[in-house]
């Protein structure tokens, strides 16, 4: 080790001997290394499972999932997870749910295929909506989760919640000059209708000009007359043959012309249909303009359907956002069919790449919970305390292999809180179109508080019922969340109460006080929130009995004043759009009156000429007794 080594390639090199291929002395260290790896793996297995569950669940939920401890008994195929906390992605300081212990019995064989098949699952001591000691938000959610939340947030951001303001309500000052004609949708629509009519007129006239049917029709009519006067005996066989040949050529031209005119006629009919639809939309655009003008003048709508979204729109969006996320996530993680699936690879120092799953020839999917009978004991003194029985069948990452997934849950014994809980779900992701249906009914559940800023107070919904249903068919979704409570509390801020005491009649504070007294008289609140339409951009609708009460109360107190203001606005909007609408209607009516009849007349006329030509050719080529002359068909 310390001596000077021999220089490579010197004269005193020992004779070369054949190198051995195997280094048998390394077998022992190698075996020791393998044993070391296996022992290390066994020792670290609990930690690996803990981290694996946290990682996979975090990727699905899109927020932090913590496992306090994992205990794996490979020989028994048992995995026990303790202290599971799943963060609510929308409220990082709250848990979606927390479970004290989850016991799963696994099939060991599929683990060698990196697949998890859970035979039975028991979840104990579950609590919902618990507080977290630290935020569960994650900086880098999985690409799938990030994309889903981006889509859901983009959808939520484009929803316009109409404002509800009582400013100036008592005075009802109407300054119609504030309504800008440039901002009126009806005028823009009218201009577009005129442009569309002009464009259609130009196109159709050019096509009629290009077809130029009149000379051909006249020529064909002349030929019909000639055929009617033709005498086969005088013409002879050659003359008849020539005449028939000429007639057939004309007939072909006439048929082609007829097809072209028929095509134009169809186009004109479609165009006329479009124009009529366009004109019919004026009513809708006028309504939109009226709503715009009302917003401009701070005059609240007295229609209950307009008040409901203003009061509960934000609440509805906040509660329906997770619904949309989970529906999309269910499709993402439980996709239909057996085609290869792409997922982003594991996070590591190297690039993650793409991991492709090939469920096609598999015996088991990547994840399967065959049959879970869970006894959910929700402890403590919270409203959810009690025992629940849940049954879950066929939760699988490849539903095409395992069939629909079913979930049922029912409260068997109530310690506190909800008297009743019923959950049923059927997720049919075997093939397209995907069909999901979920129904969750809770009675005696704690409902949230809703900020009613426009009235200077808060509505605490207290304990009531929550009825949730969801139906998805392909890309169509219909979800409904209905809250009903009889134990409501109206909480008004001290400042608002003080302002109301000295309020001048007709002032904003007076209007707020008026409405607050109306609301305080209500002892039941129903809120119905709906999500419907295409999964990409579903529409949200909200209705509540509070809105009806507010609308009625406002109508009683301010109805005449606001009606007068609305009439002035309506008159002003009508005045501003009248000319434009009239011009558009005139342009469309004129076009519809002129060109379509002309095209239709050509179509009829050419059809008649074609028929006459066919008849005359037939007569000329058919002798008595069914004998046909040359050229006859």
């Amino acid at each position, binding site marked *: *080790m*310390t001596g*000077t*080594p*021999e*220089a*490579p*390639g010197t004269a005193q*090199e020992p004779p070369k001997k054949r*190198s*051995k*291929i*195997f*280094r048998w*002395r*390394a*077998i022992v*260290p*190698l075996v020791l*290394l*393998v044993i070391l*790896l296996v022992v290390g793996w066994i020792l670290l297995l609990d930690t690996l499972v803990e981290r694996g569950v946290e990682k996979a669940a975090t990727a699905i939920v899109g927020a932090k999932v913590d496992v306090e401890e994992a205990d794996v008994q490979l020989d028994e195929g048992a995995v026990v997870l303790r202290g599971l906390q799943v963060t609510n992605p929308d409220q990082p300081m709250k848990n979606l749910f927390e479970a004290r212990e989850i016991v799963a019995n696994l099939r060991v*064989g599929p683990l*060698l*295929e*990196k*697949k998890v098949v859970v035979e039975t699952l028991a979840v104990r001591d579950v609590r919902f909506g618990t507080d977290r000691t630290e935020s569960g938000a994650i900086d880098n959610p999985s690409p799938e989760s990030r994309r889903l939340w981006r889509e859901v947030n983009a959808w939520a951001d484009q929803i316009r919640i109409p404002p509800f303001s009582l400013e100036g309500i008592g005075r009802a000052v109407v300054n119609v000059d504030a309504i800008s004609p440039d901002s009126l949708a009806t005028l823009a629509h009218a201009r577009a209708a005129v442009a569309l009519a002009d464009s259609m007129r130009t196109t159709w006239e050019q096509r009629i000009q290009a077809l130029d049917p009149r000379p051909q029709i006249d020529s064909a009519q002349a030929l019909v007359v000639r055929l009617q006067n033709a005498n086969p005996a005088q013409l002879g066989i050659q003359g008849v043959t020539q005449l028939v040949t000429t007639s057939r050529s004309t007939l072909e031209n006439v048929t082609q012309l007829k097809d072209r005119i028929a095509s134009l006629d169809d186009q004109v009919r479609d165009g006329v249909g479009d124009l009529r639809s366009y004109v019919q939309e004026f009513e809708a655009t006028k309504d939109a303009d009226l709503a715009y003008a009302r917003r401009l003048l701070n005059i609240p709508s007295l229609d209950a359907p307009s008040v409901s979204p203003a009061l509960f729109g934000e609440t509805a969006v906040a509660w329906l956002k997770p619904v949309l996320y989970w529906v999309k996530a269910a499709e993402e993680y439980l996709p239909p069919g057996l085609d*290869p699936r*792409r997922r982003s*690879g*594991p996070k*590591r*120092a*190297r*690039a*993650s*790449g*793409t*991991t*492709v*799953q*090939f469920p*096609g*020839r*598999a*015996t088991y999917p990547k994840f399967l919970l065959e049959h879970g009978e869970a006894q959910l004991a929700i402890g403590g003194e919270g409203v959810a305390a009690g025992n629940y029985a849940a049954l879950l069948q066929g939760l699988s990452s490849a539903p095409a292999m395992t069939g629909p997934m079913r979930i049922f849950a029912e409260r068997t014994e109530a310690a506190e809180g909800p008297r009743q809980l019923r959950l049923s779900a059927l997720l049919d992701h075997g093939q397209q179109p995907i069909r999901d249906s979920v129904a969750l009914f809770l009675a005696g559940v704690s409902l949230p508080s809703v900020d009613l800023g426009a009235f200077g107070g808060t509505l605490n919904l207290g304990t009531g019922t929550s009825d949730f249903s969801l139906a998805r068919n392909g890309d169509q979704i219909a979800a409904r969340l209905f809250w009903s409570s009889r134990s409501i509390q109206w909480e008004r801020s001290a400042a608002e109460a003080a302002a109301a005491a000295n309020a001048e009649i007709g002032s904003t504070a007076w209007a707020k006080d008026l409405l607050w007294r109306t609301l305080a008289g209500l002892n039941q609140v129903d809120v119905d929130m709906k999500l419907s339409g295409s999964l990409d951009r579903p529409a949200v609708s909200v209705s509540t009995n509070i809105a009806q009460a507010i609308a009625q109360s406002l109508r009683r107190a301010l109805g005449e004043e606001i009606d007068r203001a609305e009439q002035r606005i309506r008159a002003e909007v009508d005045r501003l759009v009248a000319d434009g609408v009239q011009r558009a209607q005139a342009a469309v009516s004129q076009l519809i009156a002129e060109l379509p009849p002309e095209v239709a007349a050509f179509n009829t006329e050419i059809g008649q000429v074609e028929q006459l030509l066919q008849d005359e050719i037939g007569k000329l080529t058919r002798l008595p007794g069914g004998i046909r002359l040359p050229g006859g068909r």
Partner: protein
Amino acid sequence: MYALIKLIQSLVKALNSEGTPGQVAVGMAMGSALGLTPVANIHNILILGAAMVLNVSLPGVFLGWALFLPLGFALDPVFDEVGRALLLDTPALSGLFSTIYNTPVLALSNLNNSIVLGSLVGWVVLFFPIFLLCRGLVTLYRRTVYQRLRHMKVFKAVQASKVYNWYKMFRP
């Protein structure tokens, strides 16, 4: 740490005192797998095991690992493309990958990941060129650089130190 270094040194001394340029080059080519492909995968354990059992230079393996590690990071986009092409755009191979994905133990190989597959294929393709290149470079080193270095005082001092053990793999 010292004990670990001593252990490695003694392992090197015991297992690899007769390293020829060919043995060093094979070791480096095998070690390049650890650098080119994501290290925490079954194929790397097999390669490491093979390197221990076969009479190749173990320090060469570690040198190959160290040398090719940055290259592996740099080539990740290429490996990703290769892997995706094989996994997703080659219908003829989908049956093979489906079988691998659904076969016990083989499924643990992570060959369904584009980076793992692409880099492994890349390493297989580059194995022989790496071997030839390394063998040429080691031979050249021993004929030229080593001859000059061996007379330098610093080098003699290094030779006397533990660090020299790492250079022993270049000895004939």
